[in-house]
């Protein structure tokens, strides 16, 4: 009896089979109805767009031109999220640091940046920095003004990266703190120093917790990248707004650019789901 090969493997009792079948039925029915209602919502959305009398030919004509701004939108978002990730890891280490200077620096960074509107920060990077440079130049540091006068694209990437870095600092910190004390103790008893412990034990496990909220931030950032249009970068929303104003048909262009952002975010979301499933394959079973 203790030999597992003697156990009946493929024979499920009929009662149990009936229960399994009904569960499967409910699941397929749910999936089908979900697809139906989603499709219904999309049809309804387009119906609303139709009855408010949008000029679809106008939208179709300018679609290509507006899509030309996609490159800038993606460039700004990707570079800014990269910067934000680096700042977030440094910020989180700072927030957890026992060194009072480093800890206070990180805490002040998070507090200041999270406590001020992103729009104001964008203006600060663009307008206020050159004046800092000018002041430095007056104090005798030649060339300071040129260094501090950032081009629009760079100012935008810095503004977004620094802002999101502050939010993500807290995500990374929470992720690192979610790893049990036992893991640290185990690492130490194996003789790892603290950098080895971080690299081999804490980060790989924390990453799993961090990935979903970080992708969330990235999706939010793709849309906030439209703020760089203020400084004259010809990304998606800049193009849409200018064309809308040129022909006094702003609504069409706003609807169009909203749809483009939406599709981008749907794609990003599916990427996020894949990455998340990959990271979590250790502890999530799909039978």
């Amino acid at each position, binding site marked *: 009896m203790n030999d597992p090969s003697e156990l009946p493997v493929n024979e499920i009792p009929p009662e149990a089979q009936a229960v399994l079948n009904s569960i499967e039925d409910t699941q397929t029915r749910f999936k089908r109805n979900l697809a139906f209602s989603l499709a219904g919502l999309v049809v309804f959305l387009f119906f609303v767009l139709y009855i408010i009398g949008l*000029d679809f030919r*106008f939208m179709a004509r300018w679609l290509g*031109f507006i899509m*030309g701004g996609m490159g800038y939108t993606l460039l700004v978002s990707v570079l800014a999220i990269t910067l934000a990730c680096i700042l977030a890891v440094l910020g989180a280490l700072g927030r957890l640091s026992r060194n009072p200077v480093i800890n206070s620096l990180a805490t002040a960074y998070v507090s200041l940046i999270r406590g001020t509107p992103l729009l104001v920060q964008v203006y600060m990077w*663009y*307008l206020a920095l*050159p*004046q800092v*440079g*000018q002041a430095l130049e007056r104090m005798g*540091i*030649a*060339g300071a*003004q*040129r260094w*501090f*006068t950032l*081009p*629009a694209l760079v100012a935008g990437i810095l503004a977004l990266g620094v802002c999101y870095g502050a939010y993500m600092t807290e995500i990374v910190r929470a992720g690192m703190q979610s790893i049990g004390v036992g893991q640290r103790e185990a690492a130490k008893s194996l003789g790892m120093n603290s950098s080895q412990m971080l690299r081999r034990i804490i980060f790989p496990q924390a990453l799993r917790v961090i990935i979903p909220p970080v992708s969330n931030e990235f999706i939010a950032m793709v849309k906030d990248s439209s703020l760089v249009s*203020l*400084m*004259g970068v*010809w990304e998606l929303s*800049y*193009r849409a707004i*200018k*064309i*809308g*104003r*040129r*022909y*006094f*048909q*702003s*609504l069409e262009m706003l609807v169009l650019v909203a749809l483009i952002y939406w599709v981008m975010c749907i794609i990003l979301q599916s990427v996020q789901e894949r990455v998340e499933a990959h990271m979590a394959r250790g502890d999530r079973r799909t039978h």
Partner: protein
Amino acid sequence: MRKHLTVGMMMLALFTFCAANAFAGGKSALDEIKAAGVMVVSTDANYAPQSYLNEKGELEGFDISVAKEVGKRLGVKVKFVTPDWDLITAGKWGKRWDISIGSMTPTKERKKVLLFTMPYYSSPAQFAIHKANTTIKKINDLAGKTIGVATETTYERYLNHNLQIEDVKIVYQDWKPGKLVTYPTDANAIEDLSLGDGARLDAILSSRQTIAEAIRSGCGKGCPIKMLGDPPYYEPLCFALDKTRPNSESLLAELNKIIRSMYDDGTLVKLSMKFFHTNMIPKL
């Protein structure tokens, strides 16, 4: 030891760089532009027919053509940048761009941070109402009505009795609007007026050429608005330079010379006829 060496090298490089910059500091703005071979011009692409994106999505308009002509006469290439209007009027450009060729009125406030050339054309202000309206027959009928204007424009200041332009006598209306609605740009006000008579706005105040362009080609098939009364005032429009940039005097003098030559040989009139379909160039 090696670390110290690297730091030392970096410091040295930095100092060399700074020193090189210090030598460049004394040049005049005109020389800098000529040395670079490029004049960077800021323009706000929100204003048809002065500055807008054409069928191919390229910058086009009266201001764009004027800027290209100025570049040609200065012997340099022209590069356009398109920051928000507020960033242009705020001054302190930090050499991001050399000049604004964007139909700017030299108001007293702007003169605190910007230098202005002589006017290159003048623009009539214009009230407009919805086409369907039958009760507003003259400008005085606008008393107590809701009026839309673009923010930080002379139109907003005019309705607030707070407009000062050098050498221009402004006669304010003797009535007050019921409510003033401000928009990021004139096109938004025109669109809101087009929604319907009194739907959001009863009237707008903008430039005559912008309203004419909206009636001619805007809102899909011509915006349903009409002009009301004579222009309440005319504003001179100029190029602007950054006041905080040192040694700009020779550039200003050179630009004035170029504008004068464009008056004299009829270039400005020709461009005005092309983009405004009327002559907006005053006699010198």
